[in-house]
């Protein structure tokens, strides 16, 4: 499964993981993902691919995290289910 950060969401790397900002609500989401998640480069307003490096080590925890981010409307799956 592949995921993208929605175009209405901005995200940047921090020491603890990723910091998401929803431009529609100005709300922040701190994700303690360490180096598990990274984001491909992209311009503001464009969807950016979410790169996942942690499936092998902690697949269940990573899946739960991704589901939470989907439920918050920060990312979407590219298979058309979102």
């Amino acid at each position: 499964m592949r995921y993208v950060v929605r175009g209405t969401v901005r995200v940047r790397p921090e020491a603890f993981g990723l910091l998401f900002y929803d431009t529609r609500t100005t709300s922040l989401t701190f994700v303690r993902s360490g180096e598990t998640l990274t984001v491909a480069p992209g311009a503001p307003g464009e969807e950016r691919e979410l790169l996942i490096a942690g499936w092998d080590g902690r697949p269940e925890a990573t899946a739960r995290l991704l589901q939470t981010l989907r439920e918050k409307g920060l990312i979407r799956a590219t298979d058309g289910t979102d």
Partner: protein
Amino acid sequence: MLPTALTDEALRAPVNVTWEITEACNLSCRHCLSADLRAQQRGELTPEECRRIVDDLAAADVFQVNFGGGEPFLRKDFLDLLAYAQAKGITSCVSTNGTVLDDDLVGRLAAMSGLFLQVSLDGASPGTNDAIRGAGTFARILDGVDCLRRHALRDFSLNMVVTKVNVHEVGEFADLAARLGAKARLSRFRPSGAGCASWDDYRLTKAQLLELSEFLGEHTDILTGDSFFSLTPESRRRLGLTMCGAARMTMAIAPDGGVYPCAFLTDPAFLAGDAAAESPVAIFRESEVFARLRANDNAACSGCSRFSLCHGGCPAVAYFVTRSLEAGDPECLMAALGAGV
């Protein structure tokens, strides 16, 4: 909610920046936090300097700039700067006194996407508001809000700085905002700028603070970016306001480019650098002033059972009342009541 690690570790850039873009203002509100900066008349950044600052913030992925003043719309090139920031992907929030909003200006604002407006209104009645913001301002502000509605500009809030003389109208204020299609926001009164002189006249009594906390607990739709100490632990957790963001998540830029940890801490003791001459993001990362504020452990409060819920409250209030950052917030009701709240 801030991750605990942020108490020890700084972000690589601020999340949002408060930028007092101009000294100019057509009002003289009795609690104006920027009154001292305006009185100093230290000048303003040039348009080129402003664009360089936006470039710097955008390159560091700063998400949001909260423009204020003075009255930001009185700066002639402000709309150009707003458009420039938005083109760089920065979400903009503009705090306006509402009296300069007309069809021409609002029509141009309505064409911008991702813009949030905050209109100041310090009461639900002309008598209450005008005593703070000036004669006739209540009607002029509501005219401005009508203009926003005519242009279908929806992302705006009405903001009330809660003081001793208007706290009795918070309910009516929320109702008025709802009728006008606005979100209601309540902000804390602080002894910064003109607030120093009006502190004793306007500061809430302990009883009023407690009543306000109960009101906020019952009206969770009302916005507040502030920490009212008497909130219940549950309310505080819901708001996610467990720690001051100054120097950790936010910083402030004054009209002349002076960089401070927060718009309420624009005292010379907290001047961290000059955004006209240096990268404001570098100042955020490297300034000793910012490091000192991040390291502040609020010694007076660290033994409190609720410390994890507030981390000592607002350093600006503590500093301007006690001249110490480590004194803890003087409006803490735990200390006042001497018992659990």
